[in-house]
């Protein structure tokens, strides 16, 4: 029997990984507590088991291993601190992987705590030093700048009293400078003549408001002098360099002094005393300068010491971070596990691919052995209520195509995977819209660059746009190759036709070639062997010819693509054992689509082969309006009229065939099953409940709502019937975009490049060339390829996948160390 043979043939086809998702199995592990950690980390290295959270009702801090998770979080915080410090110090965390002895978590914890303590101490020391250094530096600057004001102010002030303040030095931990200041303070004679001054330094950005505030507070009874500090001073908190301004305020009265000091404090202005006596001034300046040099040396030594410590940390940093990340992941997974009744074993449940069972067992065995456990780990399969996850084994080449499909929806478990076909059809549909072998070569070069630098780029962190390009490099490769192919067919190279495959089949009527563009050319030899004849370019009927060709081509590919989709729905139905779907969905759908648009495709091919001049629009329209009329000159082959009538009748029959039988048969099946089972429940209800409580519960919930099923079927049928018209029309975008592409490139070539070349001026030619190059790169290569990409995407997601693809599965996310990224901290 032929169908039987066919089925056998299909069943015996060699399995292909991508056709359907991997067979999954639900497993339960019972792990003795002592080997649990090791087992989980080995499983993480293997990365083929998706754990199910058995403690979903518990909040994170109520779980068993919460303390370990907290410790890991604390360690990763320390590591982040180190990383931050290393980056701030401008050291590179070395990428060389030193071969170090494996360090365990407890040791690492101690280690990290020590390092952190050391670093914090060094930082606080250097901060203190930096602060005193800054203060001395500011003092020096104030001394230099303020003395200028003081000397000039001598003319006006009869005698100035030097107001020395140690306000800026209220922090007593810094004894050195304080003593220096005190010594300055004491011998100052109190001069009562009235005019005093305060000198200090303030952030440049605050100076204006500071002056205004002083003016208001003293009611204008003050004199404010300022000068830029000239040197930038480091802010100890943000370690940024800040510009500051030196100021000297002259005022009179004790009250004003208090106010001014308070304002200084409020604005964060540091006040420094400046002696008026020139000799004193010189002495202090010398002292300050010498201290500064001392401090600078100390600071440098401190920084060197710190950098050394940081370098030693940086060498290990990557390894430590990796270790902590893994440990945290292991404990997070352990937290998903349950204790069994005896509290001695941990119970894990999860999904794993069927083929990985042997590997898993081997790994678990190794874990038992390595942790010297007396009891082995029990590993067995279980029944699961929920649907298994979808897992495709992809490689670098197939992955982006799978991503394209997954972006629409992850395949239902074991459903036919459209990615297999997408791998070829997607780039080809793109190329039909992007057919230009010049542009194709540009794309190819780009893709080749990405592929050649694959090893280097894959380790780097790329920007989001580059990452997208890099991820899709094999898609771009195929797209460009097919673009070159389609470009050769369309005979377009930056919109210029070439005589690659021999001379044109057409020639002028006479030697002068005067009427070439009015009456046309004559054909004098065999057709051009491959693609479009270059003579069509620029001819009067160029557009009419190309449009007709591309439009027909689009319909042919569209109908073929949709048929493939429907055929896949057959394989889906066969796989899931639903003969109902085959008989009442697949068959009428095939008949409906092919009796209308399959017939159109046939007409197109017959017309191409026979060279007939029949009007296909007319044929198709009158096939519906008056099927019984004579076709006349539009007849393409013998028996066309009866065939059309048969096809039309078939299409009409297909509609109710699609719509009615399925819901009624479903209803019948349901009532039969329900009756049959009601007896069963009466007889052995207790037994039933005891044996399979889960499955029993499931059956009771299954209710059959006829109207819902019928409406659903109606929607589905209407969608298909209307869809087969609108989807076929939708494939015309292949023609439209390819037309747009070729017209745009023609415009840029003729109206920019050729126009500019017409001038005998180098500048104009260069400008024309530049404009052409930019337009080609940005508009044709980037924007056009993007739009062609999007349209190809739509044709796949909507026109192709709606014929068979459910896409309501969920992805297999195994617990794997390899998938831990730096963001997981």
């Amino acid at each position: 029997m032929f169908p039987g043979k066919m089925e056998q043939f299909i069943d015996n086809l060699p399995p292909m990984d991508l056709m359907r998702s991997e067979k999954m199995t639900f497993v339960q592990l019972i792990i003795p507590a002592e080997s649990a950690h090791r087992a989980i980390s080995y499983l993480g290295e293997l990365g083929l088991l998706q754990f199910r959270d058995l403690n979903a009702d518990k909040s994170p801090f109520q779980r068993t291993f919460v303390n370990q998770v907290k410790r890991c979080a604390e360690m990763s915080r320390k590591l982040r601190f180190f990383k931050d410090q290393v980056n701030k110090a401008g050291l590179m965390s070395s990428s060389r992987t030193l071969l170090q002895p494996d360090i365990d978590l407890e040791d690492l914890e101690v280690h990290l705590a020590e390092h952190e303590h050391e670093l914090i101490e060094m930082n606080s020391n250097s901060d203190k030093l930096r602060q005193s250094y800054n203060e001395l530096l500011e003092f020096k600057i104030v001394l230099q700048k303020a003395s200028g004001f003081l000397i000039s102010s001598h003319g006006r002030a009869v005698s100035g009293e030097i107001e020395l303040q140690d306000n800026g030095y209220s922090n007593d931990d810094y004894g050195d400078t304080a003593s220096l200041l005190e010594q300055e303070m004491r011998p100052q004679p109190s001069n009562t003549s009235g005019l005093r001054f305060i000198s200090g330094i303030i952030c440049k950005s605050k100076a204006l408001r500071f002056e205004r505030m002083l003016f208001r507070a003293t009611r204008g009874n003050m004199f404010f002098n300022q000068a830029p500090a000239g040197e930038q001073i480091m802010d100890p908190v943000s370690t940024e360099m800040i510009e500051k301004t030196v100021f000297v305020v002259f005022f009179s009265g004790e009250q004003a002094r208090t106010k001014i000091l308070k304002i200084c404090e409020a604005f964060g202005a540091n006040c420094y005393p400046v002696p008026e006596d020139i000799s004193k001034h010189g002495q202090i300046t010398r002292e300050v300068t010498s201290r500064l040099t001392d401090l600078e040396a100390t600071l440098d030594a401190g920084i060197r010491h710190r950098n050394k410590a940081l370098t030693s940390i940086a060498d290990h940093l990557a390894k430590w971070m990796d270790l902590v990340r893994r440990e945290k992941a292991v404990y997070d997974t352990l937290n998903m596990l349950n204790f069994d009744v005896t509290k001695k074993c941990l119970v894990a449940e999860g999904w794993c691919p069927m083929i990985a069972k042997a590997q898993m067992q081997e790994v678990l065995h190794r874990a038992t052995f390595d942790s010297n456990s007396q009891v082995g780990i029990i590993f067995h399969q279980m029944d699961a209520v929920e649907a298994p996850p979808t897992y495709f084994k992809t490689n670098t080449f197939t992955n982006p195509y799978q991503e394209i499909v997954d972006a629409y929806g992850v395949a239902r478990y074991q459903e036919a995977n459209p990615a297999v076909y997408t791998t070829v059809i997607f780039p080809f549909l793109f190329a039909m819209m992007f057919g230009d072998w010049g542009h194709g070569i540009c794309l190819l070069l780009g893709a080749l660059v990405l592929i050649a630098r694959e090893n280097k780029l894959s380790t780097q962190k790329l920007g989001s746009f580059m990452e997208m390009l890099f991820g899709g490099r094999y898609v771009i490769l195929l797209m460009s190759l097919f673009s070159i192919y389609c470009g050769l067919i369309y005979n377009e190279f930056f919109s210029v036709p070439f005589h690659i495959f021999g001379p044109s089949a057409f020639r002028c009527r006479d030697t002068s070639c005067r009427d070439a563009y009015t009456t046309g050319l004559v054909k004098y030899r065999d057709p051009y062997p491959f693609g479009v004849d270059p003579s069509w370019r620029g001819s009067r009927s160029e557009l009419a010819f190309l449009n007709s060709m591309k439009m027909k081509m689009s319909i042919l590919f569209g109908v073929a693509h949709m048929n493939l989709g429907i055929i896949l729905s057959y394989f889906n139905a066969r796989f899931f054992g639903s003969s109902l779907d085959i008989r009442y969905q697949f068959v009428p759908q095939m008949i409906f689509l092919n009796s209308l648009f399959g017939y159109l495709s046939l007409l197109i091919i017959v017309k191409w082969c026979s060279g007939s001049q029949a009007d296909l629009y007319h044929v198709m329209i009158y096939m519906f309006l008056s099927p019984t009329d004579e076709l006349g000159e539009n007849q393409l082959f013998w028996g066309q009229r009866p065939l059309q009538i048969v096809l039309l009748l078939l299409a009409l029959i297909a509609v109710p065939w699609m719509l009615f039988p399925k819901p009624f048969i479903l209803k019948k099946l349901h009532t039969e099953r329900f009756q049959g089972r009601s007896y069963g429940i009466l007889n052995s209800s207790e037994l039933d409940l005891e044996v399979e409580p889960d499955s029993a519960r499931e059956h009771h919930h299954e209710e059959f709502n006829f109207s819902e099923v019928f409406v659903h079927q109606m929607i589905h049928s209407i969608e298909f019937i209307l869809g087969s018209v609108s989807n076929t029309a939708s494939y015309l975008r292949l023609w439209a975009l390819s037309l747009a592409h070729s017209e745009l490139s023609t415009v840029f070539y003729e109206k920019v490049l050729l126009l500019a070349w017409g001038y005998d001026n180098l500048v104009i030619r260069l400008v024309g060339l530049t404009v052409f190059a930019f337009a080609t790169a940005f508009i044709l290569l980037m924007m056009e390829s993007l739009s062609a990409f999007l349209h190809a995407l739509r044709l796949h997601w909507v026109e192709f996948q709606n014929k068979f693809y459910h896409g309501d599965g969920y992805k297999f996310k195994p617990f794997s160390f390899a998938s831990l990224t730096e963001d997981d901290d």
Partner: protein
Amino acid sequence: MYGFEALSFNIHGGYLEAIVRGHRSGLLTTADYNNLCQCETLDDIKMHLSATEYGPYLQNEPSPLHTTTIVEKCTLKLVDDYKHMLCQATEPLSTFLEYITYGHMIDNVVLIVTGTLHERDVQELLEKCHPLGMFDSIATLAVAQNMRELYRLVLVDTPLAPYFSECITSEDLDDMNIEIMRNTLYKAYLEDFYRFCQKLGGATAEIMSDLLAFEADRRAVNITINSYPYGHEELAVCEDIDQVRAVMEKYPPYQSIFAKLSYGESQMLDKAFYEEEVKRHCLAFEQQFHYAVFFAYMRLREQEIRNLMWISECVAQNQKSRVHDSVVFIF
């Protein structure tokens, strides 16, 4: 313009409204609070919060945590949200957003003036100020000796200046005067904000006037209960909480609040008011195309931070039985 704001609202306000609604969905839910209430230590709280929007703000804190750190970091998140929105806002939304901070400004001014009166260190006081109510010369507040100086030196540069007109007296600053000043400023501020919202019109005016009126009433009741001789006319003559209750029960919205309280009890009044306030703020999100969502979000977030502070304090001081006393669930 009522009814037409939908036509043009999204030109300037659409993006920010989307942002603020996104922020709103990041607010802690009842489930979160239930989990938080079960925490044993502050580390547990940190761990739980790490899964929320506060995560990035707390993850780099070294382990022995303090309540202040948690509150500070959570406030930082609010401030970052606010600053982001303010950066993106155009007129009149930016002015509206600025109005929201004036309340904090008044509180900060009062905090610093009171602090300096009691001779606290200015830096220490500055750390306690709410970061949303900071302005440039806030530290200079310490210089002022009386109201007039306070105005002339510092506040004249701030947006609070117009509210100060009633307070300019040469009276010395003491606790009493400062408290009066706070409430006068607040009154002027709420009135001004109200007028501004009325000017904006549409749903903003409608919802904001309700929210602001409630705020004003709440303050009036609190002032009366804390026996300051200010408030609405009838409230002004009240002498104890039961008289306040008698007055307030005439107004339906407040009847329900007071119905929850037993006679003579004033402790729970704050919580009852907060609950009512939260309810009203949540309702503000039910309408689209108005600015009140920004106000409501800021207030809800502040309430959430208050809740977190209370929970953290209870956990830190081992008073877990009292956790539910002051936590106001938002959703």
